[in-house]
């Protein structure tokens, strides 16, 4: 039977994108940490698209890096293509996106984990949680090993009672034919944790040599790429990037799909899980947008040392034979060989409103969950939660208060607050439009937003922090210098402005005012008045962004300040909503279920009206005064 296999501070179950960040964070914060996973060859595996980043997702990777996480560094080491998206738009939505060498990505992450001092990596299937007096104390594996710990983080991805579906074929499985975790799901249910069934899917993979690239459009990477990690300065492989390729579905594709809809599990009722609207299968797209004559298909290499190509845009759970017909109806893929079949996968997820913003479950203290198990989709979303769950599991193990990232401080904060406050009825994907302070949550300022926190909790080493402080000081210094630098309406200045189609100045004007003109860039100012100290491109960019958009930025900061007062009004843990006179029934039920930590969080619960909030405030004031009276 069982035997005691080890004692740790923190145990992380699952070594996907969430689990890796969790385990590394906990270990780096000084906790003895165990990372337990079903298959050691699947660490940081990308079961779907071989890419990292993009709008909002790329922002999260920067935030993870700013906090001292690994995803940014790992993708910088292993990308095969890097592209900055949205460069024609404002700085807040510039978004870095990398194509990964999928296999190298895994191996590099595994190596990092293996080298981490306080981190133990172990293959094993967790089947049950050890819960004593209602508190989570460890896990038991299929082989009977009992691992005990102060805190446990579950990052099980799509493995929980996973079921793969291709046409008429259906079988229990994790992603990519991995063993699913069936018993763990049952043990969660027994603890009273409510689970939902979600669905996601992946397209087929095809062989490079059977693609006719001449019928597709090339999509190259950036010549001088930026990197995800604030620490990465240069990568040799930036000079040797692989392109992606763009093609489109044809009329024939649509005909094949329409003719075979009766065999599509999406429409036959075989799929019960809720799939995401933003990631529909090709059959879904063709049914819902019947008027659209063609859909984009991107062909993406899965790595440098493989012939496998990922067919982005063709996620499907059609039967295998139909998938092949669909593929071959696409220009460039007429003779394509399919290497892996696309499939849909259903899995159990935890209803995320059962979590505190620390990602600890409300029902079972010391048990944390992160990643796809919390109803999200995407590697970056998983990793973003992973680092927070790891940090908070470590802090709890050390007897410290949890860290919560505000909505105004990061997309990670937006995501977690959305999940635990509003829940989700489909796999949750981050979008920049989910952030109300989009202008503050920029790609370029993730370090300014989060590195001080990363340092405070012990994830950012001193040397890196010193460098960060120096950067910050230099940027501030340069902004001050420009403010003090006066440009007289002399020939040089007027010539510069004329060259930019900018109106001449009438009076002496300071550098910041000039830089605020949309057509004037930092480089233009720099030519007339270079900084006395040397600044990196990143620093110059900071000066420019902080100056140019100052009006908009200040408006949002003001908003943050106003709403921040609501966030600071804390609600005590032991509040009893059932006795608060005057609350509407719906509000009472929701508040009791979500148990918000602040009035700010309460205000974001749907069904809680301003009147309910007022009543809650009056009640809290009453409570505080009574408590104060008792205390004195």
């Amino acid at each position, binding site marked *: 039977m069982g035997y005691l296999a080890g004692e740790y501070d923190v145990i992380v179950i699952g070594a996907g994108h969430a689990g890796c960040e969790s385990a590394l964070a906990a270990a780096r914060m000084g906790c003895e940490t165990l990372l337990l996973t079903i298959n050691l060859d699947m660490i940081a595996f990308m079961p779907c698209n071989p890419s990292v980043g993009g709008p909002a997702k790329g922002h999260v990777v920067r935030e993870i890096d700013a906090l001292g996480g690994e995803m940014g560094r790992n993708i910088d080491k292993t990308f095969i293509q890097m592209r900055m998206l949205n460069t024609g738009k*404002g700085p807040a939505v510039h978004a870095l996106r990398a194509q990964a060498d999928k296999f190298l990505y895994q191996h590099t992450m595994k190596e990092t984990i293996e080298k981490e001092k306080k981190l133990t990596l172990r293959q094993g299937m967790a089947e049950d949680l050890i819960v004593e007096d209602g508190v989570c104390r460890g896990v038991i594996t299929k082989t009977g090993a009992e691992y005990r710990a102060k805190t446990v983080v579950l990052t099980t991805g799509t493995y929980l009672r996973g079921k793969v579906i291709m046409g008429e074929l259906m079988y229990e499985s994790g992603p990519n034919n991995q063993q699913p975790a069936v018993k763990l799901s049952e043990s969660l249910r027994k603890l009273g944790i409510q689970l939902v069934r979600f669905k996601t899917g992946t397209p087929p993979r095809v062989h490079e040599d059977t693609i006719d690239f001449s019928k597709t459009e090339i999509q190259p990477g950036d010549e001088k790429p930026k990197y995800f990690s604030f620490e990465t300065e240069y990568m040799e492989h930036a000079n040797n990037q692989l392109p992606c390729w763009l093609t489109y579905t044809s009329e024939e594709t649509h005909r094949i799909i329409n003719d075979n809809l009766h065999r599509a599990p999406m429409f036959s009722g075989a799929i019960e899980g809720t799939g995401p609207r933003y990631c529909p299968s090709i059959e879904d797209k063709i049914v819902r947008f019947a008027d659209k004559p063609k859909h984009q298909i991107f062909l993406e290499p899965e790595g440098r040392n493989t012939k496998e190509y990922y067919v982005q845009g063709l996620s499907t759970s059609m039967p295998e034979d139909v998938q092949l017909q669909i593929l071959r109806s696409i220009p460039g893929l007429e003779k394509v060989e399919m290497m892996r079949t696309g499939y849909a996968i259903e899995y159990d997820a935890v209803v995320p409103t059962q979590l505190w913003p620390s990602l600890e479950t409300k029902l079972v203290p010391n048990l944390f969950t992160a990643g796809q198990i919390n109803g999200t989709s995407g590697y970056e979303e998983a990793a973003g939660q992973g680092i927070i769950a790891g940090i908070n599991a470590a802090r709890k193990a050390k007897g410290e208060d949890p860290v919560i990232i505000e909505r105004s401080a990061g997309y990670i904060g937006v995501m977690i607050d959305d999940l635990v406050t509003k829940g989700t009825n489909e796999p949750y994907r981050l*979008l920049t439009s989910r952030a109300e302070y989009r202008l503050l949550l920029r790609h370029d300022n993730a370090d300014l937003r989060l590195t001080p926190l990363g340092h405070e909790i012990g994830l950012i080493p001193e040397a890196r922090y010193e460098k960060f402080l120096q950067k910050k000081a230099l940027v501030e210094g340069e902004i001050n210098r420009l403010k003090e630098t006066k440009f007289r309406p002399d020939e040089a200045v007027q010539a510069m402005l004329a060259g930019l189609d900018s109106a001449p100045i009438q009076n002496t004007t300071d550098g910041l005012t000039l830089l605020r003109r949309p057509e004037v860039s930092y480089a233009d100012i720099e030519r007339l008045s270079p900084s006395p100290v040397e600044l990196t491109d990143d620093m110059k960019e900071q000066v420019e962004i902080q100056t140019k958009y100052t009006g908009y930025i200040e408006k949002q900061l003001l908003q943050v300040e106003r709403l921040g007062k609501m966030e600071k009004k804390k609600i005590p843990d032991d509040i009893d909503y059932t006795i608060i006179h005057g609350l509407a029934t719906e509000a009472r039920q929701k508040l009791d279920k979500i148990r918000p930590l602040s009035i700010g969080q309460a205000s974001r619960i749907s069904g809680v009206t301003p009147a309910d909030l007022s009543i809650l405030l*009056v009640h809290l004031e009453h409570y505080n005064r009574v408590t104060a009276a008792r205390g004195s």
Partner: protein
Amino acid sequence: MTEDTIAAVATALGEGSIAVVRVSGPEAIERVAPLFKSRVDLRDADTHTVNYGWIRDPRDGTIIDEVLVTVMKGPRSFTAEDVVEISTHGGIVAVQAVLELILRTGVRMAEPGEFTKRAFLNGRIDLAQAEAVIDLIRSKSNRAFQVARKQAEGALSKKIVPLRQQLIELLAHVEVNIDYPEHDVAEMTSSAITGTCLDVKSTVEQLLKTAAEGKILREGIVTAIVGRPNAGKSSLLNALAQENKAIVTDIPGTTRDIVEESVSLSGIPLRLLDTAGIRETSDVVERIGVERSRGALLDADLILLVLNHHEKLHEDERKLLDELVDRPVIIVVNKMDLEGHLELDEIEARFRKDRIVSISAKEGTGIDRLEKAVSQLFFGGSIESGDLTYVSNARHIALLHQTIQTLTDAIEAANSGIPIDLIQIDLARAWELLGEIVGDSVGESLLDQIFSQFCLGK
């Protein structure tokens, strides 16, 4: 605790001879001061003083009303914040205009029960009264909710909803460009943004100008009382005036040209045309051929045709009934205290029953029915005396003005080449402002729009 500054009408509307607008919060004095024309600058006024002067629209210098302004600096005030109370003449028109002006300075409309809530939170109300405070908030907001729901079905709402749809489609497009940059959705251009914004803006401007409710609130219902000399027009007017709810004041300094008198009927302001003529009992029916009177009749929002119950229909009156059949007319059958000779059947055959009201001006009976009929005609019967409808309408007007400003910002930004994700901030704000009028919350609906409008995915 620093909070924003709020305002609301603190007295029941349409009743009483004065009405009070209360402003509370850190900027109360600063916001009201520029609107107050007086020998005293409110910023220099001592606390707990009453100051005499006028409320003036700073945009064009129009005098809104003659007022008394009380300044109470925190913490010695009801809410323990700086409080300014403006006492205006009673009725709707003046207090409405004053509140609207204040809201336009960026002061927020108070939530139901919010003054009391602040008083409590700031320690001005005894602990024992916490429950009473909660009850007040609950009941006030329930009532506000009901009013809001009625409004959501109202005429204004029907105009706003399509505007919001236009904006959200634009927003969804902008968001898709940002969140799916490689997707084959055309890039939103600044000219497309400008086009939609101008479109929405001009409709909002139109709404502000012509929206019946807005007009009624700002100017009152332009009312013509017509009838033969002996029908009892004067006594009807007197009856209205004697109902103790008449304002009977001219609106000082305003530019309204033909209005000479205004009365408040169940809280609804009526602006009477040609009142002087009525008082002199000149024969309006005989003058109907006169161009000016005909014009006045055509301009009227409401026509009260007074008939004499004691006499048979006169030929002039028949002619008038013909002309008025499609107009917003209420047939007031007066002198019900006398024996009836009027051909009521003939009238009832041509006019809806709820447009015919029997009264006795002499005995003061039936005025309540007249009130109901007017209310029915203009508000579908949904208005109540002292109803929050008025208050929230001041809010609507302020919101519509803010919407115009926000759209103007968006247009300017688009024209000067500001990136779309920054213009989006103004677009989203305009959409929210309009949403506050129809009572729609923000949240998921944008995402719903994005995913129903565009085919996205990997």
